[in-house]
């Protein structure tokens, strides 16, 4: 039995979505703290541009493309869910998960390449930030993909369709974080 509390909507936003906004808000400050630390170091140290030159823009760009596309499938899944088409929403969520997996695999290959070139997490503070920020973001990608699979399972049966939108909002947030990580880590040289 679901508590009556969950059905109320005094603030004008359904409870699940309201909570997701708070999740996003607290995630903003987590990534914010890390990125503010990075930006302060980056602005102080022009030589980090040379370190950043060793990152591969094309791989980063490809990953941005993957995430943007998976965002599109997430929002299309939401649209399908709004129209009450659970199986279609589930299929689009699987597509989003596929995007997440591609992202992670490409990331792993990229790191593997960089580490084999001698750029490890303890090389210097730029690389520390590089691996920490991308790693923290990568954990969010993996967590989002797992939750998405669970939601897709229920959505397939046309149950709990509102959750499709919730994971979508979270996913778009992860996307936005990457949109900023990409220029910060790859382009600014």
């Amino acid at each position, binding site marked *: 039995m679901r508590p009556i509390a969950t059905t109320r909507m005094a*603030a*004008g*936003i*359904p409870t699940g*979505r309201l909570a997701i*906004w*708070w999740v*996003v*808000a607290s995630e*903003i*400050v987590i990534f*914010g*703290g890390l*990125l*503010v*630390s990075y*930006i*302060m*170091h980056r*602005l*102080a140290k022009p030589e980090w541009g040379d*370190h950043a030159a*060793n990152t591969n*823009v*094309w791989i980063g*760009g490809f990953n*941005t*493309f993957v995430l*943007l*596309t998976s*965002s*599109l499938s*997430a*929002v*299309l899944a939401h*649209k399908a869910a*709004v129209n009450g088409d659970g199986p279609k929403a589930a299929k689009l969520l699987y597509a989003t998960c596929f995007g997440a997996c591609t992202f992670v695999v490409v990331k792993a290959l990229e790191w593997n390449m960089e580490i084999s*070139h*001698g*750029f*490890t997490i303890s*090389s*210097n*503070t*730029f*690389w520390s930030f590089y691996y920490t920020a991308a790693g923290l973001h990568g954990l969010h990608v993996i967590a989002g993909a797992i939750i998405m699979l669970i939601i897709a399972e229920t959505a397939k049966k046309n149950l709990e369709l509102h959750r499709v939108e919730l994971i*979508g*909002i979270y996913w*778009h*947030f992860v*996307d*936005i974080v990457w*949109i*900023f990580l*990409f*220029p910060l880590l790859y*382009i*600014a*040289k």
Partner: protein
Amino acid sequence: MSEHAEHAEHEVNYVKIWAILLVLLVISILGPFVGIKVVTLITAFGIAIVKAYLVAKNFMHLNIEPRYAVYLLVTMLVFMLLLFSGSAPDIMKQEGRNWVKPEIHVEAQAPAHH
């Protein structure tokens, strides 16, 4: 449900937004090839902000959410700006009033080649 009706009214063409995002992505990758620093900064960060705005507005549907959701997220960004402006005078500078960070020579482990 009224919520669904609302979405229908604000129906946006998601594929079109996605296409715009991809064009912006290409511009931000190509920006550094111009070789001018200002252009790079604009194509990198200006476009990142535009992209984030497009995603937040159209994919996260912040445009049809009650205003306070936007205010909430913007407040968090303002707090981060506060954190930056409060700590930048210490972290970002090599010297300040009555203190200095002596030069430290940190070498990256020499990369083999690239």
